[in-house]
């Protein structure tokens, strides 16, 4: 409570004072017109009009007169303050004690003396507080205030606090600026924010002050200028909205009328069957879900993304012209080179609707394939390919000859491929086939997907007109939802819609569904009072993503006495269970990079880290018991605590960028190398000793040296020697490459491999391919494995070859190897090992017998 704050409020007053007169007049006019228009207009608006009179009565309220007296008295203590009824929010604000900024704890500076006692006392008394029980203020009592919440509040969660503020009409922003009227400061506020507050001299209050603010503020913010301005603005907005709603309703009515007439007129031209079915669907409108019933029926009704829809329309209307030009000239808007369009964006924002409506508006016949159709390469070739050059037969039945002549599109198809990113699994080769179609199609294709950026969708790059649909903002959604509510005689407050938008993430379909459901279950409609409960019930269906789970578990605000009270253990476990397979992996990946916010006295970051890694290690032991052998899935809760929550709690603080668990990738790399090693090991097993690990740890470093160094040193001349070594160990050229990938650290071979001249490399490959090589392993005839077919074939071929050469080979053997050779001859399988060149002469003669395989 300092004179500074008084100064600010006066500053506000003087700043806005010039505008004061004109808005009040306007307000009157609006209110007048409001009541006259509102009568009998709709149910929703009546709530607005009913508000207006109370407002007026407020003006006449005697409490207004107290304003001056209270406004001057800045030193009244809190007790008195609560008893007073304020008319001006600024006055109340001045009475609420400011926070002493010099004593505020910030995240880094570890001064807790100021808040510690208070917060704990609060906790024991109140515990966590939810939205409704926090404070009970008058409607819109915070109107006109811009509030910033920072730091951890003693009892309120940040989100709840913001909701409360919004509920009472305040504007909540994240960063502090000159326009900020009040900052609600909590524990561990960001130091930069605190300095900003000091700099701007913004009014600072605690959570308790916030409560007083709500309890004490008069309805609609009282007489303060800011409040009035905001109130006018809102009324203006509502007015505007109302007009929009009205026009939309009228438009719809007109459309329906028009459609009805048209149908009756064209009824005779259509085939009876189709007509009757459509007619029946129309009449049973009340049976439809609202999402269907109120789906946009004309392009003007599509919510948001207007420019994108317009682009789609021009592209489609110019398609024929561009087709004749061979898609060579980009045209004015650069869309002339695309044979297909790609609509992408989150679900429920009207992509499919827009595509259908655009096609319909230009008179195209729509052929739709979605995820329910099989869209493999063969199916597409069979069913869709034929369409691409064809014309519609339907049009001959539906339209008159004149109509067809006028609009050539009527004979045309547009192919809409919905849910393209859902092509997978059974749709083998579907994406490839589709891109092939797009390159040469004679029919426009519209593709629709949710996730444009996934690798699967990469083939569509640069061959499609990209139309990334965005979530519509609240403003464009409000008229639509209000019109629905009006038609269904359902109470919906425009203020509630904003929250609905936030909850559904801009998903219009979901919003309409929520309305539909609550219209059946809730008689009171949706108001700003019950929206939060509705919102939370809708929110629960949204699963928490693994990255959010990790960052939440690792964030310091979730632990300690305050955090745990707000976010108890069971909630943390719930987080774990929403991604139980990856949670522990993600914690393990990210716990090292997390900076702990609270380091207990006498401990170091490293000690906390060591404890955490100890827990993680123990968690893995539990994990093994769960997943292997006895499948003790009952241990899952224990695992959730040991592997994720306990280590996270030790180190929790500010996680840096959350990375995806690299264990998964590393594990599959390991799997690959284990397979490679197994192959190498068994190829050479006949001559080597030791286990697989010994082969890796002891043989491979030397083998690499022996196989690579001569080539590096002597180039082409050493190739024969290297190949001989390979053959002695029954290794192939591929194995040579594999061995080179095994080395790590300073002896990594990638640099050395680059030093080999290309000429030497290709000479090596050529030389190797031109020779015959022994094979040590033999697949039994029944053993047909993936990739095995090829080697088997090679085996047979070589085996036959060898038998042919066998007789004259015998002389080439050295004396000391003779004993081996005799038995080799007996064993047909081992005869493969023979064509090794023991002497230079033998080698020379052998090389002439070349056999190239395809």
């Amino acid at each position, binding site marked *: 409570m300092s004179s500074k704050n008084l100064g600010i409020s006066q500053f506000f007053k003087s700043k806005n004072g010039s505008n004061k007169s004109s808005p009040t007049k306007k307000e009157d006019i609006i209110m007048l017109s409001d009541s006259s228009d509102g009568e009998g207009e709709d149910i929703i608006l009546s709530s607005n009009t009913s508000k207006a009179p109370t407002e007026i009565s407020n003006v006449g309220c005697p409490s207004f007169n107290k304003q001056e007296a209270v406004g001057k008295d800045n030193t009244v203590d809190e007790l008195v303050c609560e008893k007073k009824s304020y008319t001006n929010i600024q006055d109340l604000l001045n009475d609420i004690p400011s926070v002493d900024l010099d004593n505020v704890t910030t995240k880094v500076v570890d001064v807790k003396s100021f808040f510690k006692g208070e917060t704990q006392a609060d906790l024991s008394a109140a515990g966590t507080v939810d939205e409704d029980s926090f404070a009970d203020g008058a409607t819109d009592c915070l109107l006109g205030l811009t509030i910033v919440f920072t730091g951890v509040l003693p009892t309120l969660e940040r989100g709840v606090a913001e909701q409360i503020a919004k509920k009472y009409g305040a504007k909540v922003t994240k960063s502090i600026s000159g326009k900020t009227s009040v900052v609600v400061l909590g524990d561990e506020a960001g130091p930069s924010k605190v300095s900003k507050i000091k700099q701007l001299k913004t009014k600072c209050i605690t959570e308790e002050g916030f409560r007083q603010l709500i309890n004490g503020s008069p309805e609609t913010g009282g007489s303060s200028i800011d409040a009035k301005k905001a109130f006018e603005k809102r009324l203006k907005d509502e007015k505007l909205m109302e007009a929009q709603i009205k026009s939309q309703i009228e438009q719809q009515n007109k459309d329906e009328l028009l459609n009805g007439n048209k149908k009756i007129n064209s009824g005779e031209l259509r085939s009876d069957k189709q007509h009757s079915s459509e007619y029946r669907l129309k009449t049973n409108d009340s049976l439809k879900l609202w999402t269907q019933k109120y789906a946009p029926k004309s392009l003007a009704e599509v919510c948001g993304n207007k420019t994108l829809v317009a682009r789609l329309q021009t592209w489609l209307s110019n398609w024929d012209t561009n087709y004749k030009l061979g898609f060579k000239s980009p045209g004015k808007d650069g869309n002339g080179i695309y044979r297909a369009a790609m609509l992408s964006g989150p679900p429920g924002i009207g992509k499919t609707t827009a595509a259908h409506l655009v096609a319909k508006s230009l008179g195209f016949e729509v052929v739709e394939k979605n995820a329910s159709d099989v869209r493999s390469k063969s199916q597409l070739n069979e069913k869709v390919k034929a369409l691409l050059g064809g014309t519609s037969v339907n049009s001959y039945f539906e339209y008159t000859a004149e109509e067809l002549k006028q609009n050539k599109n009527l004979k045309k198809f547009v192919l809409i491929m919905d849910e393209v990113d859902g092509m997978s699994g059974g749709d083998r080769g579907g994406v490839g086939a589709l891109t092939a179609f797009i390159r040469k199609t004679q029919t426009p294709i519209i593709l629709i997907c949710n996730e444009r950026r996934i690798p699967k969708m990469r083939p569509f790059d640069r061959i499609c007109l990209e139309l990334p649909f965005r979530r519509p903002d609240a403003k464009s959604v409000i008229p639509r939802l209000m019109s629905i509510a009006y038609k269904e005689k359902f109470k919906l407050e425009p203020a509630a819609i904003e929250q609905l938008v936030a909850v559904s993430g801009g998903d219009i379909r979901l919003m309409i569904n929520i309305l539909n459901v609550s219209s059946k279950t809730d008689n009171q409609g949706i108001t700003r009072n019950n929206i939060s409960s509705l919102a939370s019930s809708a929110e629960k269906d949204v699963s928490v993503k693994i990255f959010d789970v990790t960052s939440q578990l690792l964030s310091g605000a979730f632990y300690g006495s305050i955090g745990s009270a707000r976010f108890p253990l069971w909630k943390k476990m719930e987080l774990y269970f929403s991604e139980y397979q990856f949670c522990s992996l993600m914690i393990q990946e990210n716990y090292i990079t997390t900076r702990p916010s609270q380091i207990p006295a006498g401990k170091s970051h490293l000690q906390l880290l060591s404890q955490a890694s100890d827990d*993680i290690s123990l*968690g893995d*032991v539990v994990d093994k018991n769960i997943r292997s052998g006895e499948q003790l899935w009952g241990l899952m809760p224990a695992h959730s605590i040991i592997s994720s929550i306990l280590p996270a709690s030790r180190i929790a603080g500010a996680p840096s960028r959350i990375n995806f668990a690299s264990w998964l990738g590393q594990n599959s790399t390991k799997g690959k*190398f284990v397979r490679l090693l197994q192959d190498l090991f068994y190829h050479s097993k*006949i001559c080597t000793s030791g286990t697989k690990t010994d082969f890796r740890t002891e043989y491979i470093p030397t083998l690499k040296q*022996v196989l690579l160094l001569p080539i590096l040193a002597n180039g082409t001349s050493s190739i024969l020697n290297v190949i001989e070594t390979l053959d002695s160990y029954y290794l192939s050229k591929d194995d040579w490459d594999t061995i080179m990938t095994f080395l790590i650290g*300073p002896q990594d071979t990638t640099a050395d491999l680059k030093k080999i001249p290309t000429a030497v490399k290709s000479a090596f490959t050529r030389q190797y391919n031109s020779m015959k090589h022994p094979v040590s392993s033999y697949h039994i005839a029944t053993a047909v494995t993936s990739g095995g077919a090829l080697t088997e074939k090679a085996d047979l071929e070589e085996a036959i070859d060898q038998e042919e050469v066998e007789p004259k080979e015998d002389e080439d053997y050295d004396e000391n190897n003779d004993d081996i050779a005799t038995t080799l001859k007996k064993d047909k399988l081992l005869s493969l090992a023979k064509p090794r060149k023991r002497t230079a002469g033998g080698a020379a003669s052998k090389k002439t017998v070349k056999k190239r395989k395809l």
Partner: protein
Amino acid sequence: MSYLWVDKYRPKTLSELSHSYDITAKLENLSSATSNINNIPNILVYGPNGAGKKTRIMALLNRIYCQDSNQIYKLKIDVRQFKINSKSLELNVISSPYHIEITPSDLGFSNDKIVIQELIKELGSTSHQFTPTSSSTTGETQHVRFKTIVINDANKLSKAAQHALRRTIEKYSKNIRIIMCCETLSNIIDPIRSRMLNVRLSAPSQPEFQNIVKDVSLKESVTMGDIFINKLSVLCRGNIRLGLLTLENMAVLKNMDLSGADINVIKPDWMVCIDKICLLTLKNKTVDTVLTIRGIFYDLLAHCIPAELILQKIVEWILENAELVKLRQDKITTVIYYASIFDERLKLGSKDIFHLEGFITKMILEI
């Protein structure tokens, strides 16, 4: 044939073996012509890596079946297929006419039992008869009536597989003999141990090791000084395979001249990485170090270096260099204490990196 020296100069007969003569003598007695050759027991050979266990086993088989005529070394590799619940598994079987060599642990911990159930029983239920090919022996030749099965990595057999083996060994003893080969007995259940002749083969002593290396370098005309061979024996700790491979590695690199006074033994790539980890833990006791070391761990594990080996080598490094880096005795004890804890965790758990990281953070903290 251009084999690596370690394979080129591997002894093929019992008489060529160059260390642990007492054991060689016992094996010779077992297989000598005077005793009943069909009375040979099942044998369990264990001992450190690179001491010559397999070499000895093969030399023994060479004596039993071929009278040192080297026929036993005519090996081929078959791929045997097994079907478990419509999943087919492949096992590489190395075989000569006289014996087969299998590594059941290749099939994985849960499937190795099937090898015992199928393959060994199959061999055990047919009778065999081999006539030693030697002609030098006087008098009647003894027929060998059994086939030998060599089981590698026996300590990696699951308990189920070991139990499957217990009765199999006795039941089919008429037709088969089993020779198991492993580094440590700790995982082998007592019933198996009691059915086998346990032979512990220790690594060669320092002079023996040096003699072997010198012998090979003489044959390959590598010049070599005492400095090198001393350093080599420190690195290899009696592992002959590693010794000869490193010798060749160095010889190729230095053009057969290893006599320089300042010569340093090249360590295998992965051991260099482990040295780096140890140095990092000693020098930079920060959180970032843990992150760097995690990267190295991942690299090692991905390239098939077992976690247990990493742990073992880190502890060995600490023991070797304790004086150099001035570590107190109690700190060394702490390292060993934690190493044993996390070694157990490695066995009990499934994700190696978790436990290695647990160990390394403890180590950074404690020393």
